[in-house]
Protein backbone atom coordinates (compact mmCIF):
# COMPACT_ATOMS: atom_id res chain seq x y z
CA UNK A 1 0.00 0.00 0.00
CA UNK A 2 1.28 3.44 -0.83
CA UNK A 3 1.26 5.48 2.38
CA UNK A 4 2.43 9.11 2.22
CA UNK A 5 5.16 8.35 4.79
CA UNK A 6 6.35 5.15 3.11
CA UNK A 7 9.00 6.78 0.83
CA UNK A 8 10.70 8.20 3.94
CA UNK A 9 10.91 4.69 5.44
CA UNK A 10 12.33 3.36 2.20
CA UNK A 11 14.90 6.15 2.06
CA UNK A 12 16.00 5.33 5.61
CA UNK A 13 16.27 1.61 4.78
CA UNK A 14 18.21 2.26 1.57
CA UNK A 15 20.47 4.71 3.40
CA UNK A 16 21.34 2.22 6.14
CA UNK A 17 20.86 -1.10 4.43
CA UNK A 18 22.92 -3.06 6.97
CA UNK A 19 20.87 -1.80 9.89
CA UNK A 20 17.74 -3.79 10.75
CA UNK A 21 16.30 -1.07 12.97
CA UNK A 22 14.82 0.95 10.11
CA UNK A 23 13.27 -2.23 8.68
CA UNK A 24 11.68 -3.20 11.96
CA UNK A 25 10.36 0.32 12.50
CA UNK A 26 8.88 0.14 8.99
CA UNK A 27 7.27 -3.20 9.93
CA UNK A 28 5.66 -1.57 13.00
CA UNK A 29 4.40 1.26 10.80
CA UNK A 30 2.89 -1.18 8.31
CA UNK A 31 1.16 -3.16 11.03
CA UNK A 32 -0.29 0.00 12.54
CA UNK A 33 -1.61 0.89 9.09
CA UNK A 34 -3.35 -2.42 8.49
CA UNK A 35 -0.70 -4.26 6.47
CA UNK A 36 -0.05 -7.08 8.92
CA UNK A 37 1.18 -9.54 6.28
CA UNK A 38 3.92 -7.30 4.98
CA UNK A 39 4.93 -6.44 8.55
CA UNK A 40 5.09 -10.13 9.48
CA UNK A 41 7.15 -10.90 6.39
CA UNK A 42 9.73 -8.22 7.22
CA UNK A 43 10.07 -9.46 10.80
CA UNK A 44 10.39 -13.09 9.69
CA UNK A 45 13.11 -12.36 7.16
CA UNK A 46 15.00 -10.04 9.51
CA UNK A 47 14.98 -12.67 12.24
CA UNK A 48 15.93 -15.41 9.80
CA UNK A 49 18.90 -13.38 8.55
CA UNK A 50 19.95 -12.75 12.14
CA UNK A 51 19.86 -16.47 12.95
CA UNK A 52 21.85 -17.29 9.81
CA UNK A 53 24.44 -14.63 10.67
CA UNK A 54 24.90 -16.03 14.18
CA UNK A 55 25.35 -19.62 13.04
CA UNK A 56 21.83 -20.70 13.98
CA UNK A 57 20.66 -21.07 10.42
CA UNK A 58 20.00 -24.78 10.91
CA UNK A 59 18.10 -24.42 14.16
CA UNK A 60 14.47 -25.44 14.63
CA UNK A 61 13.58 -21.80 14.98
CA UNK A 62 15.15 -21.02 11.61
CA UNK A 63 13.22 -23.89 10.02
CA UNK A 64 10.00 -22.60 11.54
CA UNK A 65 10.70 -19.14 10.12
CA UNK A 66 11.52 -20.57 6.69
CA UNK A 67 8.17 -22.34 6.64
CA UNK A 68 6.47 -19.02 7.36
CA UNK A 69 8.65 -17.24 4.83
CA UNK A 70 7.57 -19.74 2.19
CA UNK A 71 3.94 -18.84 2.78
CA UNK A 72 4.81 -15.37 1.52
CA UNK A 73 7.40 -16.20 -1.11
CA UNK A 74 6.24 -19.60 -2.36
CA UNK A 75 5.25 -20.12 -5.97
CA UNK A 76 1.57 -19.85 -5.08
CA UNK A 77 1.88 -16.66 -3.11
CA UNK A 78 0.06 -13.57 -4.30
CA UNK A 79 2.07 -11.48 -1.86
CA UNK A 80 5.32 -12.00 -3.68
CA UNK A 81 3.75 -10.93 -6.96
CA UNK A 82 2.05 -7.83 -5.64
CA UNK A 83 4.90 -6.71 -3.39
CA UNK A 84 7.26 -7.04 -6.34
CA UNK A 85 4.95 -4.92 -8.49
CA UNK A 86 4.82 -2.25 -5.81
CA UNK A 87 8.55 -2.31 -5.10
CA UNK A 88 9.73 -2.35 -8.67
CA UNK A 89 7.06 -1.28 -11.19
CA UNK A 90 9.86 -0.58 -13.67
CA UNK A 91 10.47 -4.32 -14.09
CA UNK A 92 7.36 -5.97 -12.67
CA UNK A 93 4.09 -5.22 -14.38
CA UNK A 94 0.47 -5.68 -13.48
CA UNK A 95 -0.69 -6.56 -16.96
CA UNK A 96 -3.91 -7.45 -18.69
CA UNK A 97 -4.17 -10.68 -20.65
CA UNK A 98 -6.38 -9.26 -23.33
CA UNK A 99 -9.76 -7.71 -23.82
CA UNK A 100 -13.07 -9.48 -23.49
CA UNK A 101 -12.47 -10.75 -19.98
CA UNK A 102 -13.43 -9.32 -16.62
CA UNK A 103 -10.70 -6.91 -15.44
CA UNK A 104 -9.80 -9.12 -12.48
CA UNK A 105 -9.82 -12.27 -14.56
CA UNK A 106 -7.54 -10.68 -17.14
CA UNK A 107 -5.12 -9.28 -14.57
CA UNK A 108 -1.75 -10.94 -14.13
CA UNK A 109 1.63 -9.98 -12.71
CA UNK A 110 4.64 -10.33 -14.97
CA UNK A 111 8.29 -10.32 -13.98
CA UNK A 112 8.07 -10.81 -10.20
CA UNK A 113 10.81 -13.45 -10.36
CA UNK A 114 13.41 -10.79 -11.14
CA UNK A 115 13.56 -9.85 -7.45
CA UNK A 116 15.02 -11.77 -4.52
CA UNK A 117 13.81 -10.76 -1.09
CA UNK A 118 15.95 -10.67 1.99
CA UNK A 119 15.40 -8.99 5.35
CA UNK A 120 11.95 -8.00 4.14
CA UNK A 121 12.93 -6.05 1.05
CA UNK A 122 14.17 -6.62 -2.47
CA UNK A 123 17.89 -7.24 -2.20
CA UNK A 124 18.77 -8.72 -5.56
CA UNK A 125 17.57 -7.91 -9.03
CA UNK A 126 18.04 -9.64 -12.35
CA UNK A 127 17.23 -7.80 -15.56
CA UNK A 128 18.56 -6.90 -18.98
CA UNK A 129 21.37 -4.35 -19.11
CA UNK A 130 19.11 -2.08 -21.17
CA UNK A 131 16.44 -2.16 -18.47
CA UNK A 132 19.03 -1.40 -15.82
CA UNK A 133 20.34 1.49 -17.87
CA UNK A 134 16.85 2.98 -17.99
CA UNK A 135 15.67 2.20 -14.48
CA UNK A 136 18.63 1.19 -12.30
CA UNK A 137 18.91 4.48 -10.43
CA UNK A 138 15.17 4.63 -9.70
CA UNK A 139 15.15 1.00 -8.54
CA UNK A 140 18.03 1.60 -6.15
CA UNK A 141 16.42 4.73 -4.75
CA UNK A 142 13.52 2.70 -3.43
CA UNK A 143 15.07 -0.70 -2.75
CA UNK A 144 18.15 -1.72 -0.73
CA UNK A 145 19.65 -3.58 -3.68
CA UNK A 146 23.01 -5.27 -3.06
CA UNK A 147 23.23 -7.75 -5.91
CA UNK A 148 22.54 -7.11 -9.58
CA UNK A 149 22.59 -9.65 -12.39
CA UNK A 150 22.55 -8.13 -15.86
CA UNK A 151 21.56 -10.16 -18.90
CA UNK A 152 21.77 -9.33 -22.62
CA UNK A 153 24.73 -7.05 -22.05
CA UNK A 154 25.69 -7.19 -25.73
CA UNK A 155 22.88 -4.74 -26.50
CA UNK A 156 24.50 -1.89 -24.59
CA UNK A 157 27.49 0.08 -25.82
CA UNK A 158 30.53 1.19 -23.87
CA UNK A 159 29.01 4.69 -23.70
CA UNK A 160 25.89 3.17 -22.15
CA UNK A 161 28.07 1.49 -19.54
CA UNK A 162 29.63 4.84 -18.66
CA UNK A 163 26.12 6.10 -18.06
CA UNK A 164 25.30 3.11 -15.86
CA UNK A 165 28.34 3.30 -13.61
CA UNK A 166 26.67 5.60 -11.09
CA UNK A 167 23.73 3.23 -10.63
CA UNK A 168 26.10 0.30 -10.04
CA UNK A 169 28.38 1.91 -7.46
CA UNK A 170 28.16 0.60 -3.92
CA UNK A 171 26.73 -2.79 -4.88
CA UNK A 172 28.11 -5.85 -3.19
CA UNK A 173 28.16 -7.96 -6.34
CA UNK A 174 27.48 -7.43 -10.02
CA UNK A 175 27.08 -10.32 -12.43
CA UNK A 176 27.24 -9.67 -16.15
CA UNK A 177 26.33 -12.23 -18.77
CA UNK A 178 28.19 -12.79 -22.03
CA UNK A 179 31.04 -10.40 -21.37
CA UNK A 180 34.76 -10.94 -21.99
CA UNK A 181 37.36 -10.81 -19.24
CA UNK A 182 38.87 -7.62 -20.71
CA UNK A 183 35.58 -5.83 -20.32
CA UNK A 184 35.14 -7.15 -16.80
CA UNK A 185 38.57 -5.79 -15.89
CA UNK A 186 37.57 -2.41 -17.27
CA UNK A 187 34.39 -2.53 -15.21
CA UNK A 188 36.34 -3.42 -12.07
CA UNK A 189 38.42 -0.28 -12.48
CA UNK A 190 35.26 1.81 -12.54
CA UNK A 191 33.53 -0.02 -9.71
CA UNK A 192 36.08 -0.50 -6.93
CA UNK A 193 34.73 -2.55 -4.04
CA UNK A 194 32.13 -4.30 -6.17
CA UNK A 195 32.68 -8.00 -6.79
CA UNK A 196 32.16 -8.44 -10.52
CA UNK A 197 31.51 -11.82 -12.07
CA UNK A 198 31.07 -12.78 -15.69
CA UNK A 199 28.89 -15.70 -16.69
CA UNK A 200 28.10 -17.22 -20.03
Amino acid at each position, binding site marked *: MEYPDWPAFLAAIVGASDDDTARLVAADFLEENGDADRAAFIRIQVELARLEATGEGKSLEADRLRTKEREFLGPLS*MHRQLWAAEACPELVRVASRGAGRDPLEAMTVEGADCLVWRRGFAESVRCSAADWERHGSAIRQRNPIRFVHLTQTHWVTRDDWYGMIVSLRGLERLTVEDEEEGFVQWLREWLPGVVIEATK
Partner: protein
Amino acid sequence: MSAESDLIALDDLPSEARELIARTENAIAVARERADARTGELRGAAEAECAAIRDRAEAEVALVEQAATRELAPLVRELVNSLRKMQEVYAREGKLDEALAIRARIRQLRGNLLGVRTDPGNLTEFTAHEVGRTVLFEVVGRTDGSVWGTDAYTADSRLATAAVHAGALREGERGLVRVTLQDGGEQFYQGSTRHGVTSYDYGGYSLAYRVERV
Protein backbone atom coordinates in the same frame (compact mmCIF):
# COMPACT_ATOMS: atom_id res chain seq x y z
CA MET B 1 18.40 -2.67 -89.34
CA SER B 2 20.45 -5.69 -88.26
CA ALA B 3 22.69 -5.78 -85.16
CA GLU B 4 25.75 -5.83 -87.36
CA SER B 5 24.71 -2.68 -89.17
CA ASP B 6 24.11 -1.04 -85.74
CA LEU B 7 27.73 -1.69 -84.75
CA ILE B 8 29.01 -0.29 -88.03
CA ALA B 9 26.85 2.79 -87.55
CA LEU B 10 28.24 3.33 -83.99
CA ASP B 11 31.81 3.09 -85.29
CA ASP B 12 31.01 5.94 -87.61
CA LEU B 13 29.76 8.18 -84.81
CA PRO B 14 31.55 11.50 -85.08
CA SER B 15 33.66 12.55 -82.14
CA GLU B 16 31.48 15.63 -81.72
CA ALA B 17 28.45 13.39 -81.16
CA ARG B 18 30.44 11.13 -78.85
CA GLU B 19 31.53 14.07 -76.69
CA LEU B 20 27.98 15.39 -76.55
CA ILE B 21 26.72 12.00 -75.42
CA ALA B 22 29.54 11.66 -72.88
CA ARG B 23 28.83 15.12 -71.43
CA THR B 24 25.14 14.33 -71.17
CA GLU B 25 25.85 10.97 -69.54
CA ASN B 26 28.13 12.69 -67.09
CA ALA B 27 25.48 15.31 -66.30
CA ILE B 28 22.89 12.53 -65.81
CA ALA B 29 25.24 10.69 -63.47
CA VAL B 30 25.90 13.85 -61.45
CA ALA B 31 22.19 14.69 -61.23
CA ARG B 32 21.37 11.07 -60.31
CA GLU B 33 24.04 11.03 -57.65
CA ARG B 34 22.80 14.33 -56.21
CA ALA B 35 19.22 13.08 -56.16
CA ASP B 36 20.25 9.77 -54.59
CA ALA B 37 22.27 11.56 -51.93
CA ARG B 38 19.36 13.88 -51.14
CA THR B 39 16.92 10.97 -51.08
CA GLY B 40 19.24 9.13 -48.70
CA GLU B 41 19.49 12.16 -46.47
CA LEU B 42 15.72 12.58 -46.36
CA ARG B 43 15.14 8.89 -45.67
CA GLY B 44 17.83 8.87 -42.98
CA ALA B 45 16.39 11.95 -41.32
CA ALA B 46 12.89 10.47 -41.46
CA GLU B 47 14.11 7.19 -39.96
CA ALA B 48 15.97 9.02 -37.20
CA GLU B 49 12.88 11.09 -36.51
CA CYS B 50 10.69 7.96 -36.47
CA ALA B 51 13.13 6.23 -34.12
CA ALA B 52 13.13 9.25 -31.81
CA ILE B 53 9.31 9.38 -31.84
CA ARG B 54 9.15 5.62 -31.21
CA ASP B 55 11.64 5.88 -28.34
CA ARG B 56 9.74 8.78 -26.80
CA ALA B 57 6.45 6.90 -27.18
CA GLU B 58 7.98 3.72 -25.67
CA ALA B 59 9.32 5.73 -22.73
CA GLU B 60 5.92 7.35 -22.21
CA VAL B 61 4.16 3.98 -22.51
CA ALA B 62 6.55 2.55 -19.92
CA LEU B 63 5.76 5.41 -17.55
CA VAL B 64 2.02 4.89 -18.01
CA GLU B 65 2.46 1.14 -17.37
CA GLN B 66 4.47 1.86 -14.23
CA ALA B 67 1.84 4.29 -12.98
CA ALA B 68 -0.89 1.70 -13.68
CA THR B 69 1.09 -0.97 -11.82
CA ARG B 70 1.58 1.34 -8.83
CA GLU B 71 -2.15 1.96 -8.77
CA LEU B 72 -3.36 -1.57 -9.45
CA ALA B 73 -1.14 -3.64 -7.16
CA PRO B 74 -2.36 -1.97 -3.92
CA LEU B 75 -5.95 -2.16 -5.16
CA VAL B 76 -5.72 -5.90 -5.63
CA ARG B 77 -3.96 -6.35 -2.30
CA GLU B 78 -6.69 -4.42 -0.52
CA LEU B 79 -9.33 -6.49 -2.28
CA VAL B 80 -7.68 -9.74 -1.19
CA ASN B 81 -7.25 -8.53 2.39
CA SER B 82 -10.87 -7.44 2.56
CA LEU B 83 -12.12 -10.71 1.07
CA ARG B 84 -10.08 -12.70 3.58
CA LYS B 85 -11.53 -10.74 6.48
CA MET B 86 -15.01 -11.23 5.03
CA GLN B 87 -14.35 -14.96 4.70
CA GLU B 88 -13.34 -15.15 8.37
CA VAL B 89 -16.49 -13.31 9.44
CA TYR B 90 -18.74 -15.65 7.42
CA ALA B 91 -16.91 -18.69 8.78
CA ARG B 92 -17.28 -17.44 12.36
CA GLU B 93 -20.99 -16.90 11.78
CA GLY B 94 -21.33 -20.47 10.53
CA LYS B 95 -22.12 -19.41 6.97
CA LEU B 96 -19.77 -21.95 5.50
CA ASP B 97 -21.07 -21.95 1.94
CA GLU B 98 -20.48 -18.22 1.69
CA ALA B 99 -17.06 -18.52 3.31
CA LEU B 100 -16.07 -21.31 0.90
CA ALA B 101 -17.33 -19.28 -2.07
CA ILE B 102 -15.17 -16.36 -1.00
CA ARG B 103 -12.18 -18.66 -0.58
CA ALA B 104 -12.73 -20.07 -4.07
CA ARG B 105 -12.89 -16.55 -5.50
CA ILE B 106 -9.62 -15.63 -3.77
CA ARG B 107 -8.01 -18.76 -5.20
CA GLN B 108 -9.29 -17.89 -8.64
CA LEU B 109 -7.85 -14.43 -8.30
CA ARG B 110 -4.56 -15.91 -7.18
CA GLY B 111 -4.53 -18.20 -10.20
CA ASN B 112 -5.06 -15.22 -12.49
CA LEU B 113 -2.32 -13.19 -10.86
CA LEU B 114 0.14 -16.05 -11.00
CA GLY B 115 -0.70 -16.60 -14.65
CA VAL B 116 -1.99 -20.13 -14.08
CA ARG B 117 -3.25 -21.59 -17.36
CA THR B 118 -5.74 -24.29 -18.05
CA ASP B 119 -4.50 -27.60 -19.42
CA PRO B 120 -3.68 -27.04 -23.12
CA GLY B 121 -3.42 -30.80 -23.87
CA ASN B 122 0.19 -30.68 -24.98
CA LEU B 123 2.80 -27.94 -25.28
CA THR B 124 3.11 -27.61 -29.04
CA GLU B 125 1.93 -24.00 -28.81
CA PHE B 126 5.39 -23.12 -27.48
CA THR B 127 8.47 -22.69 -29.65
CA ALA B 128 12.19 -23.28 -29.29
CA HIS B 129 12.60 -19.52 -28.67
CA GLU B 130 10.92 -20.02 -25.32
CA VAL B 131 13.45 -22.51 -23.90
CA GLY B 132 14.00 -21.83 -20.19
CA ARG B 133 10.53 -20.37 -19.69
CA THR B 134 8.39 -21.72 -16.85
CA VAL B 135 4.61 -21.80 -16.98
CA LEU B 136 2.04 -22.84 -14.38
CA PHE B 137 -0.87 -25.06 -15.43
CA GLU B 138 -3.87 -26.38 -13.58
CA VAL B 139 -4.13 -29.99 -14.64
CA VAL B 140 -6.10 -33.12 -13.76
CA GLY B 141 -3.76 -36.15 -13.83
CA ARG B 142 -4.51 -38.82 -16.45
CA THR B 143 -3.03 -42.15 -17.37
CA ASP B 144 -4.27 -42.27 -20.96
CA GLY B 145 -2.72 -40.34 -23.80
CA SER B 146 0.73 -40.53 -25.34
CA VAL B 147 3.94 -39.44 -23.69
CA TRP B 148 7.51 -39.62 -25.01
CA GLY B 149 10.51 -39.56 -22.70
CA THR B 150 11.24 -39.75 -18.97
CA ASP B 151 11.63 -36.65 -16.78
CA ALA B 152 12.04 -34.62 -19.96
CA TYR B 153 9.12 -35.11 -22.34
CA THR B 154 8.64 -34.10 -25.97
CA ALA B 155 6.47 -30.98 -26.34
CA ASP B 156 3.74 -33.00 -28.06
CA SER B 157 3.39 -35.32 -25.05
CA ARG B 158 0.08 -35.03 -23.23
CA LEU B 159 0.70 -32.81 -20.20
CA ALA B 160 -1.87 -34.45 -17.89
CA THR B 161 -0.29 -37.86 -18.55
CA ALA B 162 3.29 -36.64 -18.31
CA ALA B 163 2.39 -35.06 -14.94
CA VAL B 164 1.37 -38.50 -13.63
CA HIS B 165 4.40 -40.21 -15.20
CA ALA B 166 6.69 -37.62 -13.57
CA GLY B 167 5.00 -38.13 -10.20
CA ALA B 168 3.73 -34.55 -10.06
CA LEU B 169 0.08 -35.64 -9.84
CA ARG B 170 -1.90 -38.81 -9.28
CA GLU B 171 -4.54 -40.01 -11.69
CA GLY B 172 -7.70 -37.91 -11.25
CA GLU B 173 -5.95 -35.43 -8.98
CA ARG B 174 -6.36 -31.75 -9.82
CA GLY B 175 -3.33 -29.64 -9.07
CA LEU B 176 -0.92 -26.96 -10.16
CA VAL B 177 2.18 -28.02 -12.02
CA ARG B 178 5.14 -25.99 -13.12
CA VAL B 179 6.38 -26.72 -16.62
CA THR B 180 9.89 -25.74 -17.67
CA LEU B 181 10.63 -25.66 -21.38
CA GLN B 182 13.91 -27.19 -22.48
CA ASP B 183 15.95 -27.50 -25.62
CA GLY B 184 15.19 -31.04 -26.79
CA GLY B 185 16.99 -31.20 -30.11
CA GLU B 186 20.10 -33.06 -29.01
CA GLN B 187 18.62 -35.59 -26.67
CA PHE B 188 17.19 -39.07 -27.00
CA TYR B 189 13.89 -39.47 -25.20
CA GLN B 190 14.01 -42.71 -23.24
CA GLY B 191 10.63 -44.25 -22.48
CA SER B 192 9.80 -45.95 -19.18
CA THR B 193 6.93 -47.12 -17.00
CA ARG B 194 6.20 -45.02 -13.92
CA HIS B 195 3.14 -44.52 -11.75
CA GLY B 196 0.97 -46.58 -14.10
CA VAL B 197 1.97 -44.70 -17.25
CA THR B 198 4.18 -46.11 -19.98
CA SER B 199 6.02 -43.55 -22.05
CA TYR B 200 7.64 -44.16 -25.43
CA ASP B 201 11.16 -43.70 -26.81
CA TYR B 202 11.77 -40.95 -29.31
CA GLY B 203 14.83 -39.96 -31.30
CA GLY B 204 14.73 -36.19 -31.64
CA TYR B 205 12.18 -33.50 -30.90
CA SER B 206 13.22 -29.87 -30.85
CA LEU B 207 11.34 -28.80 -27.73
CA ALA B 208 11.06 -30.69 -24.45
CA TYR B 209 9.55 -29.95 -21.08
CA ARG B 210 9.89 -30.98 -17.47
CA VAL B 211 6.91 -31.00 -15.19
CA GLU B 212 6.88 -30.74 -11.40
CA ARG B 213 4.37 -30.24 -8.67
CA VAL B 214 4.04 -26.72 -7.33
